[in-house]
């Protein structure tokens, strides 16, 4: 399809439910409609919030599709109906939403990809805690392991990201007045995400992310980097069956995105494939490699008997500047004598920066 224009994505980013993302998005939709733009609501989640619902008045809503799953009927965005309707812009609430099994695509952001590919612009909403690379930090801050995540590259390709802000005081006030959730849910909410210090920390995270999103969209030479990075960074992640690998992949990806660096993930196996591993380990390594690929990280299986030397040799041949590793499991003996390759990698990689990524754990309550 030559000359075909891809749709543009605009994300309204917040730090918690109830800060007014959907309201702000609908306000913009109303303005666009008033100026004559063909805009429809592709999906809207009312949550019983009256002021927000009032903002939909006069906007065309594409009916949701109903999907039977087990014994219940679920409603999801009807992507095909929106494609058939072909508006200039579609409003799609709750970007990180997971579709009920039985839909063509697992995630709403994947449905949005389809709309964008068809040339439809999309306005959408999400909270900072759903950004994949912040998953561990959000866990550290809130004690909640968020399962519905959006890969960073999906947000990165958005034309615009706008921060929707509200002070935690005002948000708690809204929660108290029952504007955000009904009573029972509000009580549950107050115990995790809605603790004041959690809200403040998430808000700070969102503000810094929004600042990054602004900088990321500036032309390279305009970015305020002093000193300019002299060397081009290339980051290498060691993938193993260790469950902490996912965390290291997220962290490495985040650093490489912020530095504008390339990122690779490799695993070292003595026969060059995963066949030598016990099935649980093989599944774990495969899962980690897949996870990396989903984040748009190039992966490789290296052949070698010695993890440290194989990894560092590969790094040297590929101008790697940083190696990211999981923290070794604590043993009674010093690292130098541990079977874990960390110390050996540090010793071999004398010309590279070695980063040992720490656990990010929530405080005990």
């Amino acid at each position, binding site marked *: 399809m030559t000359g075909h224009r891809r749709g543009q994505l*605009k994300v309204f980013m917040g730090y918690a439910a109830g800060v007014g993302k959907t309201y702000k998005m609908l306000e913009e939709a109303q303005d666009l409609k008033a100026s004559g733009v063909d805009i429809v609501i592709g999906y809207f989640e009312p949550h019983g919030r009256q002021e927000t619902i009032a903002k939909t008045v006069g906007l065309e809503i594409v009916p949701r599709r109903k999907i039977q799953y087990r014994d219940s009927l679920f409603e999801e965005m009807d992507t095909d109906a929106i494609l058939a309707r072909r508006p200039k812009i579609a409003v799609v609430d709750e970007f990180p939403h997971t579709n009920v099994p039985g839909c063509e695509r697992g995630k709403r952001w994947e449905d949005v990809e389809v709309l964008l590919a068809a040339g439809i612009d999309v306005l959408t909403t999400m909270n900072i805690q759903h950004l994949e690379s912040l998953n561990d*930090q959000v866990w*550290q*801050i809130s004690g909640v392991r968020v399962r519905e995540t959006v890969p960073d590259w999906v947000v990165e390709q958005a034309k*615009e990201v*706008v921060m*929707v*802000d*509200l*002070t935690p*005081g*005002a948000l*708690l006030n809204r929660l*108290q007045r029952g504007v955000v959730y009904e009573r029972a849910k*509000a*009580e549950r909410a107050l*115990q995790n995400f809605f603790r*004041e*210090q959690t809200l403040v*920390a*998430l808000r*700070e*995270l969102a*503000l*810094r992310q929004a*600042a*990054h999103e*602004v900088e990321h*969209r*500036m032309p390279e030479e*305009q970015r*305020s*980097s*002093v*000193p300019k*990075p002299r060397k081009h960074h290339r980051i290498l992640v060691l993938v193993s069956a260790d469950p902490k690998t996912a965390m290291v992949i997220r962290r490495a990806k985040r650093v490489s995105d*912020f*530095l504008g660096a390339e990122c690779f993930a490799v695993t070292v196996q003595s026969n060059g494939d995963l066949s030598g591993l016990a099935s649980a380990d093989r599944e774990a390594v495969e899962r980690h490699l897949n996870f990396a690929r989903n984040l748009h990280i190039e992966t490789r299986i290296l052949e070698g008997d010695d993890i440290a030397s194989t990894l560092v040799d590969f790094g040297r041949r590929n101008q790697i500047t940083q190696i990211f590793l999981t*923290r*070794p499991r*604590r043993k009674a003996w*010093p*690292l*130098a*004598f541990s079977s874990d390759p960390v*110390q050996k990698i*540090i010793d071999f*990689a*004398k*010309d*590279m*920066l*070695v*980063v*040992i990524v*720490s*656990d*990010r*754990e929530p*405080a005990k309550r």
Partner: protein
Amino acid sequence: MAAETRRKTPEEYLRECQAEEAAATSKGHLKIFLGYASGVGKSFRMLDEARRRRERGEDVVVGAMQPHVPADVEPLVRKLEVIPLKAGNAIDVEALICRRPLVCIIDGLAYDNPPGLRNATRWQDVKDILEAGINVIASINVQYVAELRERVEAITEKRVSETVPLSFIQSADEIEIVDASPPKAPMERPTERMQEHAERLSKLRELALVVTADIVDYQLNDYLERHGIKQRFGASERILVCITPRANLREMLEFGQIIAQKFHGELVVAYVKQGGLSPEDQSALEARLAIANAAGVHVEILEGNDPAEALLEFARLRGVTQLFVGHSQRTALARLKGSPLDKLIWEGHGIDVCVFPQ
């Protein structure tokens, strides 16, 4: 369940919040809307809040509006009582204090008063109004923060003359950023001038977001301290560069600065005082301290028998998320008892350890 470990109910939680608020209410409550340019909707957000408060029965008056009221704000203002400005755009502080509303709206904090009035600037007037127990909702653009003046002037290439000190903005009980996409260029093919204008706006926008994040960070630490909470959240990246005699300090500092800047975080430099250094190490250390000095960074000097422990303690206190250390020179034999690096890796919870080549 023991009383002290029982989770608070939402009611208790809110009652506590309200009690805390009430304790501070002899003074008025200050809320600031921060924007990055005119036209992003600060006035609208502020007046919309005024409308909602009015509808909830609060006594709201307007103490100051911008000379040009945007079209969408106009109807909101019309529904509110306005205390007219005095000559020279000064707030009528006396009239406001005499009127004693619950809430007063001040659109634009950065104005200098004409000579002869009680205060030289509007933000000082606002301070007086707050002292009198009146709540204030005010707006300001990031350009007018005194401490950012140089950076703003470098971006806009315009002189900024009327400013508000950062400390006053930090003293606000609440600060909210009004973010929006930069106003769109009307044409398909923008001219070079419009392009430049758009870039300037983007930089101001980034600055406004970072300033707000820094203020939020400041207020978060304040909250944690007041409540005796030791936990650090890692919401802001803080890099701690450790100076050792053999460290490749130049590279560590340079990379630390880049990371701090890219993550809109903070760089901290420290070294642990050690006895028994060889003369070579001592002079190498001094050379490195001189490098840090020349780079204009402040070096924290730490003391402690166990260097790794001293570093970790300092790092935890400051909410460090990345620790930059040089490569250890120890031989395998010397590592027999475990190296300081082992300790940093195992005990630095939430702190990545970055080992630099030397």
